[in-house]
């Protein structure tokens, strides 16, 4: 007699796990991320990220290009924040060669990097809100991002992959009147930020969708190697701009916004604050641009001495580091390695989504703000 069903289990039915494939073609995996979700009903019990769909071998390619050509390749990593990629790379090589960058160039680099942060955060805000269903914010944020792209276009002629920095300084000085335009953009952006916040910050549905979703403690975030806003959202005061200042950050005043709960809403608030801090930084930097040259003393043939170095900057997505080995003989790096913030933050995804619902997965992919071009390189 096998009539008696076993009573030990919590449910009398045999329930199957549903394995569902999210991506690489999915509207909200921000590119070609593929997540293999194991579901119990709508609850995620396991998630595996599959990456590599947009791997172009940038690191290996760089080992066969000369030092200046690599700048162009770094554009293609985090393609929504090309200027900070350029900045990180150029500074690493400058560190390796011990090149002094003129103060004017450092200020301009700061302006560009912070404008880039605003543009990148605009894209994050738009897509994150869109994933949660607030579609108007997307269009608003892209409208403002367009202004930043216009500024970049005026500065260097490109709108997406700028190739905007050089080892030792900048390729070009700013066009006349550009600083005025930047300042008027700052005024505009402040007003628009309030618009976004009207739509989201106190919106009950937005709060319900982001409060207590994907909570992660500071220790755990450090353990997973998270960086940037996801790390600061858990209350860890780590910002490369403050801790190891580069460019002109040591001469400018700014705060590092920190979260308390480590949930998606905190990460949202932090990035909204970072918008404001960036505007503040841009204002200070533009007003304080000194006179002087924009290029330092750089040899005609860039050939760093033998040695290795690691240098990190705070990109919009987190700590972007470059590790470069030079053999001192050739005109290309012996080893080129990037520590991409998106990749490191993506590691946290599994931990964040487990136990949440399918709908939260897209919110959490949005909150860690990944760009697959940077994850795969």
């Amino acid at each position, binding site marked *: 007699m096998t009539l008696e069903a076993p009573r030990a289990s919590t449910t009398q039915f045999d329930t199957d796990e549903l394995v569902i494939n999210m991506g690489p073609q999915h509207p909200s995996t921000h590119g070609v991320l593929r997540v293999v979700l194991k579901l119990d009903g*709508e609850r995620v019990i396991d998630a595996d990220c599959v990456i590599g769909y947009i791997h172009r071998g940038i690191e290996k390619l760089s080992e066969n290009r000369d030092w200046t050509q690599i700048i162009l390749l770094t554009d293609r990593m985090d393609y929504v924040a090309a200027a900070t990629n350029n900045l990180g790379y150029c500074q690493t090589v400058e560190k390796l060669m011990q090149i002094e960058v003129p103060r004017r160039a450092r200020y301009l680099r700061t302006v560009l990097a912070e404008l880039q942060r605003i543009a990148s955060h605009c894209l994050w805000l738009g897509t994150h809100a869109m994933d949660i269903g607030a579609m*108007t914010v997307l269009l608003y944020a892209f409208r403002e991002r367009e202004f930043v792209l216009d500024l970049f276009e005026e500065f260097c002629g490109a709108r997406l992959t700028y190739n905007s920095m050089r080892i030792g300084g900048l390729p070009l000085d700013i066009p006349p009147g550009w600083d005025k335009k930047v300042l008027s953009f700052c005024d505009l952006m402040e007003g628009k930020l309030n618009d976004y916040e009207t739509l989201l910050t106190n*919106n009950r549905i937005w709060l319900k969708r982001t409060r207590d979703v994907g909570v992660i403690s500071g220790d755990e975030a450090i353990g997973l190697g998270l960086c940037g806003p996801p790390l600061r959202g858990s209350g860890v005061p780590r910002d490369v701009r403050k801790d190891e200042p580069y460019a002109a950050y040591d001469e400018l005043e700014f705060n590092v916004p920190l979260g308390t709960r480590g949930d998606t809403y905190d990460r949202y608030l932090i990035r909204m604050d970072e918008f404001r801090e960036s505007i503040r930084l841009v204002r200070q930097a533009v007003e304080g641009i000194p006179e002087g040259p924009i290029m330092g003393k750089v040899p005609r043939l860039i050939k760093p001495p033998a040695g290795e170095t690691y240098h990190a900057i705070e990109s919009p997505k987190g700590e972007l580091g470059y590790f470069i080995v030079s053999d001192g003989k050739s005109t290309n790096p012996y080893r080129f390695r990037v520590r991409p913030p998106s990749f490191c933050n993506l590691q946290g995804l599994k931990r964040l989504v487990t136990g949440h619902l399918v709908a939260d997965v897209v919110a959490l992919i949005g909150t860690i703000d990944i760009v697959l071009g940077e994850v795969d390189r």
Partner: protein
Amino acid sequence: MLETIVVPLAKIVVLLNAVLVAVTFLVLMERKVIAWAQSRLGPMRVGPYGILQAIADPIKLILKEDITPRKADKYVFTLAPIMSLVPALVVFAVVPFGPDPFYYLSDINVGLLFIISVTSIGVYGIILGGWASNSKYPLLASLRASAQLISYEIAVTMTLVSVILTTGTLSLVGIVEAQREGGLWFAFVQPVALMLVFIGGLAETNRAPFDLPEAETELTGGFHTEYSGMRFSLFFLAEYANMIVISAIVVIMFFGGWLQPFPNVPALAFLGFVPPWIWFIGKIFLFLYVFIWIRATLPRYRYDQLMALGWKVLIPVAIGNLVVTGILKVAL
């Protein structure tokens, strides 16, 4: 012969065409309104200000290839879109566009119940569409959809009962007449019920912020992921026809149907020069505008939050409203 067959048939033809044309223009309206909300222009290429987009869209959908997935259940896959559209259209049989019998097809004594029951059939299209596709995302979406529809139907029906209590009739014409006699729209008599029916209506038509079954960013389009061409457009038509139905219910129940504002106030009698059916359709479009406006503004609920809202907020409030209405009805 003329009275019993020809006239009703002619009315049916006119009504069906009117609804379908209204739906195509509603799609255009939605695109335009959302575009304006997002500081865009919306469709501008086809015809002046993109007006002919309403005609271009259906033509495109009809001409598209109609794909049936190989592993799908062919019959159910074909049946599902039909089952979702037909109830949405049948409902219009009892919607009164004006006071005379000329303006409606039939005035049955259980009109309101008829609408509720016929719309409840519409859920089959969604469930079966998701199941017959034999694909995971549509299945998840169709489960969400059916749970959502059933829960919110309870809330809406409970709320409508309190309106029935005030009028004492289930006939839609009777309900509007009761508002004329009372001289006051039920929106002022039953404001709580209005909110409940409107929220429930948003959920029942799968509109934002309750558009989980077709949450594009989560479930890649939901239950109609595997559909294309004409069959997809039937689902589309059904959704928008349902929007019109819900707006019509709200207008009839709470905003006096074809009545002008404050019908018994002599100072406003000059409003009578507008024909009743224009009042009715105008009010419906006002609500459709609100539907679209909400979609452009709000983020989406999560599935569990949506169910919690339905069962823990709307249904208790609906029952409370019913009890209060009953007590007041007895007391007054």
